[in-house]
Protein backbone atom coordinates (compact mmCIF):
# COMPACT_ATOMS: atom_id res chain seq x y z
CA UNK A 1 0.00 0.00 0.00
CA UNK A 2 1.26 3.42 -0.95
CA UNK A 3 0.80 6.26 1.50
CA UNK A 4 -0.32 9.48 -0.17
CA UNK A 5 1.45 12.29 1.68
CA UNK A 6 0.93 16.01 1.82
CA UNK A 7 3.75 16.43 -0.73
CA UNK A 8 1.97 14.00 -3.07
CA UNK A 9 -1.19 16.11 -2.83
CA UNK A 10 0.75 19.31 -3.55
CA UNK A 11 2.47 17.67 -6.55
CA UNK A 12 -0.91 16.49 -7.86
CA UNK A 13 -2.39 20.00 -7.64
CA UNK A 14 0.64 21.53 -9.39
CA UNK A 15 0.54 18.89 -12.13
CA UNK A 16 -3.21 19.43 -12.53
CA UNK A 17 -2.68 23.16 -13.06
CA UNK A 18 -0.17 22.33 -15.79
CA UNK A 19 -2.44 19.74 -17.46
CA UNK A 20 -5.43 22.09 -17.44
CA UNK A 21 -3.31 24.89 -18.92
CA UNK A 22 -2.16 22.56 -21.71
CA UNK A 23 -5.77 21.48 -22.31
CA UNK A 24 -7.32 24.94 -22.04
CA UNK A 25 -8.22 25.22 -25.71
CA UNK A 26 -9.26 21.56 -25.96
CA UNK A 27 -11.77 21.95 -23.10
CA UNK A 28 -13.06 25.26 -24.46
CA UNK A 29 -13.52 23.71 -27.91
CA UNK A 30 -15.51 20.83 -26.38
CA UNK A 31 -17.65 23.45 -24.59
CA UNK A 32 -18.42 25.39 -27.79
CA UNK A 33 -21.04 23.16 -29.45
CA UNK A 34 -22.92 22.27 -26.22
CA UNK A 35 -22.05 25.02 -23.75
CA UNK A 36 -20.75 28.55 -23.81
CA UNK A 37 -17.16 28.03 -24.89
CA UNK A 38 -15.38 28.93 -21.67
CA UNK A 39 -14.74 25.74 -19.67
CA UNK A 40 -11.00 25.58 -20.42
CA UNK A 41 -10.57 29.30 -19.78
CA UNK A 42 -12.41 29.09 -16.44
CA UNK A 43 -10.62 25.95 -15.19
CA UNK A 44 -7.24 27.39 -16.17
CA UNK A 45 -8.02 30.63 -14.32
CA UNK A 46 -9.07 28.65 -11.24
CA UNK A 47 -6.00 26.43 -11.08
CA UNK A 48 -3.67 29.36 -11.79
CA UNK A 49 -5.13 30.93 -8.64
CA UNK A 50 -4.59 27.65 -6.76
CA UNK A 51 -0.93 27.66 -7.94
CA UNK A 52 -0.50 31.18 -6.61
CA UNK A 53 -1.65 30.21 -3.10
CA UNK A 54 0.12 26.82 -2.87
CA UNK A 55 3.36 28.30 -1.44
CA UNK A 56 1.37 29.61 1.54
CA UNK A 57 0.01 26.08 2.13
CA UNK A 58 3.40 24.32 2.30
CA UNK A 59 3.25 23.89 6.07
CA UNK A 60 -0.48 23.06 6.25
CA UNK A 61 -2.05 19.61 6.54
CA UNK A 62 -3.74 17.67 3.72
CA UNK A 63 -7.26 18.62 4.77
CA UNK A 64 -6.47 22.36 4.93
CA UNK A 65 -4.71 22.23 1.55
CA UNK A 66 -7.73 20.59 -0.08
CA UNK A 67 -10.30 22.87 1.55
CA UNK A 68 -8.34 26.01 0.67
CA UNK A 69 -7.95 24.75 -2.90
CA UNK A 70 -11.74 24.26 -3.04
CA UNK A 71 -12.52 27.73 -1.73
CA UNK A 72 -10.17 29.38 -4.19
CA UNK A 73 -11.77 27.42 -7.07
CA UNK A 74 -15.24 28.51 -5.87
CA UNK A 75 -14.10 32.12 -5.88
CA UNK A 76 -12.28 32.19 -9.23
CA UNK A 77 -13.82 29.69 -11.66
CA UNK A 78 -17.41 31.02 -11.73
CA UNK A 79 -20.26 29.41 -13.65
CA UNK A 80 -21.38 25.99 -12.45
CA UNK A 81 -17.87 24.50 -12.55
CA UNK A 82 -16.65 26.77 -9.72
CA UNK A 83 -19.11 25.59 -7.07
CA UNK A 84 -18.96 21.98 -8.34
CA UNK A 85 -15.17 21.54 -8.37
CA UNK A 86 -14.84 23.78 -5.32
CA UNK A 87 -17.28 21.61 -3.39
CA UNK A 88 -15.47 18.44 -4.54
CA UNK A 89 -12.20 19.60 -2.97
CA UNK A 90 -13.85 21.13 0.13
CA UNK A 91 -15.82 17.95 0.91
CA UNK A 92 -12.84 15.72 0.04
CA UNK A 93 -10.81 17.84 2.48
CA UNK A 94 -13.42 17.40 5.21
CA UNK A 95 -13.18 13.61 4.73
CA UNK A 96 -9.46 13.50 5.63
CA UNK A 97 -9.24 15.86 8.62
CA UNK A 98 -6.05 15.36 10.68
CA UNK A 99 -4.69 12.69 8.33
CA UNK A 100 -0.91 12.81 7.97
CA UNK A 101 -1.15 10.56 4.93
CA UNK A 102 -3.96 8.91 2.98
CA UNK A 103 -4.36 5.14 3.18
CA UNK A 104 -6.32 3.22 0.54
CA UNK A 105 -9.48 3.59 2.63
CA UNK A 106 -8.85 7.34 2.98
CA UNK A 107 -8.45 7.62 -0.78
CA UNK A 108 -11.85 6.01 -1.29
CA UNK A 109 -13.59 8.22 1.27
CA UNK A 110 -11.80 11.28 -0.21
CA UNK A 111 -13.38 10.70 -3.63
CA UNK A 112 -16.64 9.41 -2.15
CA UNK A 113 -17.21 12.58 -0.08
CA UNK A 114 -16.13 14.84 -2.94
CA UNK A 115 -18.62 13.13 -5.25
CA UNK A 116 -21.40 13.35 -2.65
CA UNK A 117 -20.77 17.10 -2.41
CA UNK A 118 -21.14 17.43 -6.19
CA UNK A 119 -24.33 15.35 -6.23
CA UNK A 120 -25.76 17.44 -3.39
CA UNK A 121 -25.37 20.83 -5.07
CA UNK A 122 -25.51 19.81 -8.74
CA UNK A 123 -28.33 17.27 -8.43
CA UNK A 124 -27.08 15.37 -11.48
CA UNK A 125 -27.38 11.62 -11.74
CA UNK A 126 -25.30 9.08 -13.63
CA UNK A 127 -26.32 9.32 -17.30
CA UNK A 128 -27.11 13.07 -17.28
CA UNK A 129 -23.93 13.84 -19.31
CA UNK A 130 -21.92 15.57 -16.61
CA UNK A 131 -18.74 15.17 -14.54
CA UNK A 132 -20.66 12.64 -12.42
CA UNK A 133 -20.44 10.20 -15.34
CA UNK A 134 -16.67 10.14 -14.84
CA UNK A 135 -16.30 10.40 -11.07
CA UNK A 136 -18.99 7.88 -10.09
CA UNK A 137 -17.63 4.94 -12.17
CA UNK A 138 -14.08 5.95 -11.22
CA UNK A 139 -14.98 5.64 -7.53
CA UNK A 140 -16.67 2.27 -8.12
CA UNK A 141 -13.61 0.96 -9.95
CA UNK A 142 -11.32 2.12 -7.14
CA UNK A 143 -13.45 0.41 -4.49
CA UNK A 144 -13.66 -2.76 -6.55
CA UNK A 145 -9.91 -2.82 -7.13
CA UNK A 146 -9.14 -2.53 -3.42
CA UNK A 147 -11.74 -5.19 -2.66
CA UNK A 148 -9.93 -7.44 -5.13
CA UNK A 149 -6.66 -6.90 -3.30
CA UNK A 150 -4.99 -4.60 -5.84
CA UNK A 151 -2.24 -2.30 -4.59
CA UNK A 152 -2.69 1.48 -4.58
CA UNK A 153 -1.17 2.23 -7.96
CA UNK A 154 -2.88 -0.69 -9.73
CA UNK A 155 -6.16 0.45 -8.24
CA UNK A 156 -5.59 4.04 -9.39
CA UNK A 157 -4.81 2.70 -12.86
CA UNK A 158 -8.13 0.85 -12.94
CA UNK A 159 -9.85 3.99 -11.65
CA UNK A 160 -8.42 6.02 -14.54
CA UNK A 161 -9.52 3.37 -17.06
CA UNK A 162 -13.06 3.62 -15.69
CA UNK A 163 -12.89 7.43 -15.76
CA UNK A 164 -11.79 7.33 -19.40
CA UNK A 165 -14.63 5.01 -20.32
CA UNK A 166 -17.07 7.24 -18.40
CA UNK A 167 -15.85 10.26 -20.33
CA UNK A 168 -16.28 8.52 -23.70
CA UNK A 169 -19.69 7.25 -22.60
CA UNK A 170 -20.93 10.85 -22.36
CA UNK A 171 -20.69 11.22 -26.17
CA UNK A 172 -23.99 9.50 -27.08
CA UNK A 173 -25.80 10.83 -23.99
CA UNK A 174 -28.60 13.39 -24.01
CA UNK A 175 -27.71 16.20 -21.57
CA UNK A 176 -30.15 16.58 -18.69
CA UNK A 177 -28.30 19.04 -16.46
CA UNK A 178 -26.37 22.24 -17.09
CA UNK A 179 -26.46 24.54 -20.07
CA UNK A 180 -26.15 21.67 -22.55
CA UNK A 181 -29.58 20.44 -21.44
CA UNK A 182 -31.26 23.25 -23.40
CA UNK A 183 -29.99 21.64 -26.59
CA UNK A 184 -32.09 18.52 -26.11
CA UNK A 185 -31.33 16.08 -28.93
CA UNK A 186 -28.66 18.40 -30.29
CA UNK A 187 -26.43 17.59 -27.28
CA UNK A 188 -26.06 13.98 -28.50
CA UNK A 189 -22.73 13.19 -30.20
CA UNK A 190 -20.58 15.57 -28.16
CA UNK A 191 -18.20 14.65 -25.34
CA UNK A 192 -19.04 16.52 -22.15
CA UNK A 193 -16.41 19.15 -21.24
CA UNK A 194 -16.94 18.80 -17.46
CA UNK A 195 -16.58 15.02 -17.69
CA UNK A 196 -13.37 15.61 -19.64
CA UNK A 197 -11.82 17.93 -17.06
CA UNK A 198 -12.76 15.46 -14.31
CA UNK A 199 -11.00 12.69 -16.22
CA UNK A 200 -7.89 14.87 -16.66
CA UNK A 201 -7.76 15.66 -12.92
CA UNK A 202 -8.10 11.98 -11.90
CA UNK A 203 -5.61 10.83 -14.55
CA UNK A 204 -3.13 13.39 -13.28
CA UNK A 205 -3.41 11.99 -9.73
CA UNK A 206 -2.53 8.51 -11.01
CA UNK A 207 0.30 9.73 -13.24
CA UNK A 208 1.79 11.96 -10.53
CA UNK A 209 1.74 9.32 -7.84
CA UNK A 210 2.80 6.46 -10.12
CA UNK A 211 6.03 8.19 -11.08
CA UNK A 212 6.91 8.70 -7.43
CA UNK A 213 6.97 5.02 -6.59
Amino acid sequence: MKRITKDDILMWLKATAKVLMENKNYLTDLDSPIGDADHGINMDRGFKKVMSILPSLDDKDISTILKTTGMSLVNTVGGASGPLYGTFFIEAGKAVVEKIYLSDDDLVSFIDCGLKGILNIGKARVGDKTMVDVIAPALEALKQAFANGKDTIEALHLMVDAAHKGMKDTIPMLAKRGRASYLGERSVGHQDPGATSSYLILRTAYETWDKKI
Partner: protein
Amino acid sequence: MKKLINKAENVVKEELEGISMAYPDTIKVHFDPNFIYRADAPVKNKVSLISGGGSGHEPMHGSFVGLGMLDAACPGDIFTSPTPDQMLEATKMVATDKGVLYIIKNYSGDVMNFKMAADMAHDAGIKVDAIIIDDDVAVKDSLYTEGRRGVGTTPIAEHILGAAAENGYSLQELVDLGRRVNINGRSLGMALTSCIVPAHGKPTFELGPDEIEIGIGIHGEPGRKRMKIKSADEITELLALSIIEDDPYTRTITQWDGEKKKWVDVKVTDPPFKEGDEVLAFVNSMGGTPDIELLIIYRKLYKICKEKGIKIVRNLIGRYITSLEMQGCSITLVKMDNEMIKLWDAPVKTAGMRWGI
Protein backbone atom coordinates in the same frame (compact mmCIF):
# COMPACT_ATOMS: atom_id res chain seq x y z
CA MET B 1 -13.96 40.05 -34.63
CA LYS B 2 -14.53 43.79 -34.77
CA LYS B 3 -15.32 45.36 -31.37
CA LEU B 4 -14.70 48.61 -29.54
CA ILE B 5 -12.53 47.03 -26.89
CA ASN B 6 -8.89 47.22 -25.84
CA LYS B 7 -7.97 43.75 -24.58
CA ALA B 8 -10.51 40.93 -24.34
CA GLU B 9 -9.41 40.08 -20.78
CA ASN B 10 -9.95 43.70 -19.63
CA VAL B 11 -13.49 44.18 -20.95
CA VAL B 12 -15.36 43.76 -17.64
CA LYS B 13 -12.79 45.68 -15.57
CA GLU B 14 -12.77 48.64 -17.97
CA GLU B 15 -16.57 48.65 -18.24
CA LEU B 16 -16.76 48.85 -14.43
CA GLU B 17 -14.24 51.70 -14.40
CA GLY B 18 -16.39 53.45 -17.01
CA ILE B 19 -19.65 53.05 -15.12
CA SER B 20 -18.07 54.37 -11.90
CA MET B 21 -16.91 57.47 -13.79
CA ALA B 22 -20.25 57.95 -15.57
CA TYR B 23 -22.68 57.82 -12.62
CA PRO B 24 -20.79 58.83 -9.47
CA ASP B 25 -23.87 60.34 -7.81
CA THR B 26 -25.80 57.05 -8.13
CA ILE B 27 -23.32 54.20 -7.78
CA LYS B 28 -19.88 53.16 -6.60
CA VAL B 29 -17.79 50.25 -7.81
CA HIS B 30 -15.82 47.89 -5.58
CA PHE B 31 -12.98 46.02 -7.29
CA ASP B 32 -11.56 42.61 -6.36
CA PRO B 33 -14.07 41.26 -5.66
CA ASN B 34 -16.12 43.17 -8.21
CA PHE B 35 -19.52 44.63 -7.44
CA ILE B 36 -21.52 47.78 -8.09
CA TYR B 37 -23.42 49.30 -5.15
CA ARG B 38 -25.58 52.28 -4.33
CA ALA B 39 -23.55 55.39 -3.53
CA ASP B 40 -25.70 55.89 -0.41
CA ALA B 41 -25.54 52.24 0.77
CA PRO B 42 -26.47 50.88 3.19
CA VAL B 43 -29.90 52.57 3.04
CA LYS B 44 -31.38 52.35 6.54
CA ASN B 45 -34.82 50.84 7.31
CA LYS B 46 -35.02 49.08 3.97
CA VAL B 47 -34.41 45.54 2.77
CA SER B 48 -31.42 45.55 0.41
CA LEU B 49 -31.72 43.91 -3.00
CA ILE B 50 -28.81 42.20 -4.73
CA SER B 51 -28.73 40.63 -8.16
CA GLY B 52 -25.97 39.51 -10.43
CA GLY B 53 -25.05 37.33 -13.32
CA GLY B 54 -22.60 37.08 -16.16
CA SER B 55 -21.59 40.31 -17.89
CA GLY B 56 -22.67 40.99 -21.46
CA HIS B 57 -26.35 41.66 -20.63
CA GLU B 58 -25.99 45.40 -19.98
CA PRO B 59 -27.75 47.49 -18.82
CA MET B 60 -28.78 44.53 -16.58
CA HIS B 61 -27.76 44.39 -13.71
CA GLY B 62 -25.15 47.07 -13.00
CA SER B 63 -27.17 49.92 -14.50
CA PHE B 64 -30.18 48.90 -12.40
CA VAL B 65 -28.46 49.85 -9.14
CA GLY B 66 -30.02 52.89 -7.49
CA LEU B 67 -33.16 54.21 -5.86
CA GLY B 68 -36.23 52.06 -6.58
CA MET B 69 -34.21 49.12 -7.88
CA LEU B 70 -31.10 47.23 -6.72
CA ASP B 71 -28.73 48.03 -3.85
CA ALA B 72 -25.90 46.03 -5.42
CA ALA B 73 -25.10 44.02 -8.54
CA CYS B 74 -22.37 41.40 -8.95
CA PRO B 75 -21.03 41.07 -12.50
CA GLY B 76 -19.25 37.87 -13.52
CA ASP B 77 -17.04 37.44 -16.52
CA ILE B 78 -18.88 37.66 -19.83
CA PHE B 79 -21.70 35.08 -19.74
CA THR B 80 -20.17 33.44 -16.63
CA SER B 81 -21.93 33.69 -13.30
CA PRO B 82 -20.24 35.72 -10.57
CA THR B 83 -18.65 34.00 -7.57
CA PRO B 84 -19.75 33.76 -3.90
CA ASP B 85 -16.97 36.05 -2.61
CA GLN B 86 -18.35 38.90 -4.74
CA MET B 87 -21.89 38.27 -3.50
CA LEU B 88 -20.79 37.96 0.14
CA GLU B 89 -18.78 41.21 0.08
CA ALA B 90 -21.64 43.02 -1.68
CA THR B 91 -24.02 41.62 0.95
CA LYS B 92 -21.85 42.90 3.80
CA MET B 93 -21.61 46.32 2.12
CA VAL B 94 -25.38 46.89 1.69
CA ALA B 95 -26.93 44.73 4.46
CA THR B 96 -29.38 46.33 6.87
CA ASP B 97 -31.26 45.01 9.90
CA LYS B 98 -34.25 44.35 7.62
CA GLY B 99 -32.26 41.82 5.61
CA VAL B 100 -31.06 41.17 2.09
CA LEU B 101 -32.92 39.67 -0.88
CA TYR B 102 -31.08 37.94 -3.72
CA ILE B 103 -32.76 38.04 -7.15
CA ILE B 104 -31.39 35.06 -9.08
CA LYS B 105 -31.92 34.10 -12.71
CA ASN B 106 -32.43 30.36 -13.14
CA TYR B 107 -29.10 29.19 -14.55
CA SER B 108 -27.26 26.35 -12.80
CA GLY B 109 -24.14 28.48 -12.17
CA ASP B 110 -26.02 31.54 -10.89
CA VAL B 111 -28.17 29.44 -8.57
CA MET B 112 -25.25 27.44 -7.12
CA ASN B 113 -23.06 30.49 -6.55
CA PHE B 114 -25.83 32.57 -4.95
CA LYS B 115 -26.81 29.64 -2.71
CA MET B 116 -23.23 29.29 -1.50
CA ALA B 117 -23.11 33.05 -0.87
CA ALA B 118 -26.42 32.91 1.02
CA ASP B 119 -25.09 30.09 3.21
CA MET B 120 -21.95 32.11 3.96
CA ALA B 121 -24.05 35.22 4.73
CA HIS B 122 -26.24 33.16 7.08
CA ASP B 123 -23.09 31.94 8.83
CA ALA B 124 -22.03 35.60 9.18
CA GLY B 125 -25.35 36.36 10.88
CA ILE B 126 -26.92 38.28 7.98
CA LYS B 127 -30.60 37.68 7.20
CA VAL B 128 -30.73 36.66 3.53
CA ASP B 129 -33.51 35.25 1.37
CA ALA B 130 -33.75 34.66 -2.37
CA ILE B 131 -36.15 34.50 -5.26
CA ILE B 132 -35.52 32.74 -8.55
CA ILE B 133 -36.72 34.09 -11.89
CA ASP B 134 -37.57 31.36 -14.44
CA ASP B 135 -39.82 32.79 -17.15
CA ASP B 136 -38.48 31.61 -20.54
CA VAL B 137 -41.21 29.58 -22.26
CA ALA B 138 -38.70 28.35 -24.86
CA VAL B 139 -37.81 25.66 -22.34
CA LYS B 140 -40.79 23.32 -22.38
CA ASP B 141 -39.66 20.62 -20.05
CA SER B 142 -38.24 21.07 -16.57
CA LEU B 143 -37.77 17.35 -15.97
CA TYR B 144 -34.99 16.86 -18.48
CA THR B 145 -33.40 20.30 -18.38
CA GLU B 146 -32.35 22.84 -15.76
CA GLY B 147 -35.85 24.26 -16.17
CA ARG B 148 -36.88 27.60 -17.59
CA ARG B 149 -34.23 30.28 -17.81
CA GLY B 150 -34.53 33.66 -16.17
CA VAL B 151 -34.91 36.39 -18.81
CA GLY B 152 -37.20 39.40 -19.42
CA THR B 153 -39.17 39.24 -16.18
CA THR B 154 -35.93 39.98 -14.31
CA PRO B 155 -35.68 43.78 -14.84
CA ILE B 156 -39.44 44.11 -14.27
CA ALA B 157 -39.13 42.24 -10.95
CA GLU B 158 -36.06 44.26 -9.99
CA HIS B 159 -37.96 47.53 -10.20
CA ILE B 160 -41.23 46.30 -8.65
CA LEU B 161 -39.30 44.78 -5.73
CA GLY B 162 -36.97 47.77 -5.48
CA ALA B 163 -39.95 50.11 -5.22
CA ALA B 164 -41.58 47.83 -2.64
CA ALA B 165 -38.37 47.82 -0.59
CA GLU B 166 -38.32 51.65 -0.67
CA ASN B 167 -41.91 51.51 0.63
CA GLY B 168 -40.90 49.52 3.70
CA TYR B 169 -41.88 45.97 2.69
CA SER B 170 -40.38 43.29 4.94
CA LEU B 171 -38.06 40.58 3.61
CA GLN B 172 -40.86 37.99 3.70
CA GLU B 173 -43.27 40.37 1.93
CA LEU B 174 -40.67 40.96 -0.78
CA VAL B 175 -40.12 37.22 -1.20
CA ASP B 176 -43.87 36.67 -1.62
CA LEU B 177 -44.19 39.58 -4.05
CA GLY B 178 -41.14 38.45 -6.04
CA ARG B 179 -42.55 34.94 -6.44
CA ARG B 180 -45.86 36.44 -7.54
CA VAL B 181 -44.17 38.58 -10.20
CA ASN B 182 -42.20 35.56 -11.40
CA ILE B 183 -45.13 33.17 -11.80
CA ASN B 184 -47.08 35.88 -13.63
CA GLY B 185 -44.27 36.64 -16.09
CA ARG B 186 -43.49 34.83 -19.32
CA SER B 187 -40.93 35.59 -22.03
CA LEU B 188 -39.69 34.35 -25.37
CA GLY B 189 -36.78 35.62 -27.45
CA MET B 190 -35.41 35.23 -30.96
CA ALA B 191 -32.14 35.97 -32.74
CA LEU B 192 -31.34 37.28 -36.20
CA THR B 193 -27.58 37.00 -35.63
CA SER B 194 -25.19 35.47 -33.10
CA CYS B 195 -23.05 37.43 -30.67
CA ILE B 196 -19.29 37.14 -30.27
CA VAL B 197 -17.82 36.61 -26.81
CA PRO B 198 -14.62 38.75 -26.79
CA ALA B 199 -12.43 36.06 -25.18
CA HIS B 200 -13.64 33.51 -27.73
CA GLY B 201 -13.42 35.77 -30.80
CA LYS B 202 -15.85 33.73 -32.93
CA PRO B 203 -19.66 33.76 -33.20
CA THR B 204 -21.21 31.58 -30.49
CA PHE B 205 -23.44 29.89 -33.08
CA GLU B 206 -23.83 30.00 -36.85
CA LEU B 207 -27.01 31.27 -38.47
CA GLY B 208 -27.37 31.36 -42.24
CA PRO B 209 -28.05 34.77 -43.86
CA ASP B 210 -31.78 33.98 -44.11
CA GLU B 211 -32.16 32.01 -40.87
CA ILE B 212 -33.46 32.96 -37.42
CA GLU B 213 -33.47 31.10 -34.10
CA ILE B 214 -36.69 31.14 -32.08
CA GLY B 215 -36.34 30.72 -28.32
CA ILE B 216 -32.76 31.89 -28.11
CA GLY B 217 -31.20 32.21 -24.65
CA ILE B 218 -29.38 35.34 -23.53
CA HIS B 219 -26.02 33.56 -23.80
CA GLY B 220 -26.71 32.40 -27.32
CA GLU B 221 -28.00 29.03 -26.11
CA PRO B 222 -30.19 27.46 -28.75
CA GLY B 223 -33.94 27.60 -28.48
CA ARG B 224 -36.96 25.83 -29.82
CA LYS B 225 -36.26 25.87 -33.50
CA ARG B 226 -34.37 27.37 -36.37
CA MET B 227 -36.34 28.65 -39.36
CA LYS B 228 -36.26 30.87 -42.43
CA ILE B 229 -36.69 34.57 -41.67
CA LYS B 230 -40.25 35.87 -41.67
CA SER B 231 -41.87 39.30 -41.50
CA ALA B 232 -41.90 41.27 -38.22
CA ASP B 233 -45.65 40.63 -37.89
CA GLU B 234 -45.24 36.87 -38.35
CA ILE B 235 -42.36 36.68 -35.87
CA THR B 236 -44.26 38.79 -33.32
CA GLU B 237 -47.27 36.51 -33.69
CA LEU B 238 -45.11 33.43 -33.17
CA LEU B 239 -43.54 34.87 -30.01
CA ALA B 240 -46.70 36.43 -28.57
CA LEU B 241 -48.92 33.38 -29.12
CA SER B 242 -46.30 31.05 -27.64
CA ILE B 243 -46.41 33.22 -24.50
CA ILE B 244 -50.16 33.82 -24.34
CA GLU B 245 -51.14 30.22 -25.14
CA ASP B 246 -48.47 28.62 -22.95
CA ASP B 247 -49.94 25.91 -20.71
CA PRO B 248 -49.72 26.00 -16.90
CA TYR B 249 -46.10 25.29 -16.07
CA THR B 250 -45.16 23.28 -12.98
CA ARG B 251 -41.61 23.01 -11.72
CA THR B 252 -39.65 22.41 -8.53
CA ILE B 253 -37.86 25.49 -7.24
CA THR B 254 -35.35 25.58 -4.39
CA GLN B 255 -36.42 28.09 -1.75
CA TRP B 256 -34.83 29.20 1.52
CA ASP B 257 -36.95 28.20 4.49
CA GLY B 258 -36.32 30.88 7.11
CA GLU B 259 -37.87 28.83 9.93
CA LYS B 260 -36.12 25.55 9.22
CA LYS B 261 -33.02 27.48 8.18
CA LYS B 262 -32.34 25.34 5.14
CA TRP B 263 -33.02 25.13 1.40
CA VAL B 264 -36.18 23.23 0.50
CA ASP B 265 -37.63 22.16 -2.85
CA VAL B 266 -41.12 23.49 -3.55
CA LYS B 267 -43.45 22.75 -6.48
CA VAL B 268 -44.81 25.91 -8.13
CA THR B 269 -47.28 26.26 -11.01
CA ASP B 270 -47.71 29.31 -13.28
CA PRO B 271 -51.28 30.20 -14.19
CA PRO B 272 -51.70 30.72 -17.96
CA PHE B 273 -52.87 34.04 -19.43
CA LYS B 274 -56.58 34.55 -20.01
CA GLU B 275 -59.02 37.04 -21.44
CA GLY B 276 -59.41 40.11 -19.21
CA ASP B 277 -55.84 39.98 -17.86
CA GLU B 278 -54.01 43.27 -17.43
CA VAL B 279 -50.36 43.02 -18.44
CA LEU B 280 -47.13 44.89 -18.66
CA ALA B 281 -45.81 44.34 -22.20
CA PHE B 282 -42.03 44.45 -22.53
CA VAL B 283 -40.37 44.48 -25.96
CA ASN B 284 -36.63 44.11 -25.50
CA SER B 285 -33.67 44.40 -27.87
CA MET B 286 -31.05 41.64 -27.63
CA GLY B 287 -28.45 44.37 -28.11
CA GLY B 288 -28.17 44.97 -31.85
CA THR B 289 -31.80 45.56 -32.82
CA PRO B 290 -32.77 49.26 -33.08
CA ASP B 291 -35.81 50.96 -31.53
CA ILE B 292 -37.44 51.37 -34.95
CA GLU B 293 -37.79 47.58 -35.23
CA LEU B 294 -38.89 47.20 -31.59
CA LEU B 295 -41.76 49.60 -32.26
CA ILE B 296 -42.86 47.58 -35.29
CA ILE B 297 -42.87 44.52 -32.99
CA TYR B 298 -44.83 46.44 -30.33
CA ARG B 299 -47.40 47.53 -32.93
CA LYS B 300 -48.26 43.92 -33.77
CA LEU B 301 -48.07 42.80 -30.13
CA TYR B 302 -50.60 45.50 -29.21
CA LYS B 303 -53.02 44.24 -31.88
CA ILE B 304 -52.64 40.58 -30.82
CA CYS B 305 -53.24 41.39 -27.15
CA LYS B 306 -56.31 43.40 -28.12
CA GLU B 307 -57.72 40.50 -30.16
CA LYS B 308 -57.09 38.13 -27.24
CA GLY B 309 -58.81 40.46 -24.76
CA ILE B 310 -55.58 41.08 -22.88
CA LYS B 311 -55.18 44.68 -21.81
CA ILE B 312 -51.73 46.24 -21.92
CA VAL B 313 -51.72 48.60 -18.93
CA ARG B 314 -48.00 49.44 -18.93
CA ASN B 315 -45.15 48.90 -21.36
CA LEU B 316 -41.39 48.93 -21.55
CA ILE B 317 -39.65 49.15 -24.92
CA GLY B 318 -35.90 49.26 -25.43
CA ARG B 319 -32.61 47.58 -24.63
CA TYR B 320 -32.69 46.23 -21.06
CA ILE B 321 -31.47 42.61 -21.06
CA THR B 322 -29.08 41.95 -23.88
CA SER B 323 -26.74 39.38 -25.30
CA LEU B 324 -23.80 41.60 -26.31
CA GLU B 325 -24.35 42.77 -29.91
CA MET B 326 -26.83 40.05 -30.89
CA GLN B 327 -29.61 41.20 -33.21
CA GLY B 328 -33.03 40.02 -32.18
CA CYS B 329 -35.68 40.73 -29.61
CA SER B 330 -37.64 39.23 -26.78
CA ILE B 331 -41.21 39.74 -25.66
CA THR B 332 -42.22 39.53 -22.01
CA LEU B 333 -45.76 39.73 -20.65
CA VAL B 334 -46.28 40.10 -16.91
CA LYS B 335 -49.79 39.87 -15.56
CA MET B 336 -50.18 42.85 -13.25
CA ASP B 337 -52.42 43.56 -10.26
CA ASN B 338 -53.06 46.97 -8.71
CA GLU B 339 -50.27 46.64 -6.19
CA MET B 340 -47.74 45.71 -8.89
CA ILE B 341 -48.89 48.59 -11.13
CA LYS B 342 -48.52 51.08 -8.28
CA LEU B 343 -45.01 49.85 -7.52
CA TRP B 344 -44.06 49.87 -11.22
CA ASP B 345 -45.09 53.56 -11.38
CA ALA B 346 -43.03 54.42 -8.29
CA PRO B 347 -39.86 56.48 -8.71
CA VAL B 348 -36.71 54.82 -10.04
CA LYS B 349 -33.35 56.48 -10.46
CA THR B 350 -30.72 54.24 -12.02
CA ALA B 351 -28.39 54.54 -15.01
CA GLY B 352 -30.60 52.18 -17.01
CA MET B 353 -34.16 53.03 -15.89
CA ARG B 354 -35.34 56.38 -14.59
CA TRP B 355 -38.74 58.01 -14.02
CA GLY B 356 -40.93 59.68 -11.44
CA ILE B 357 -38.06 61.65 -9.98
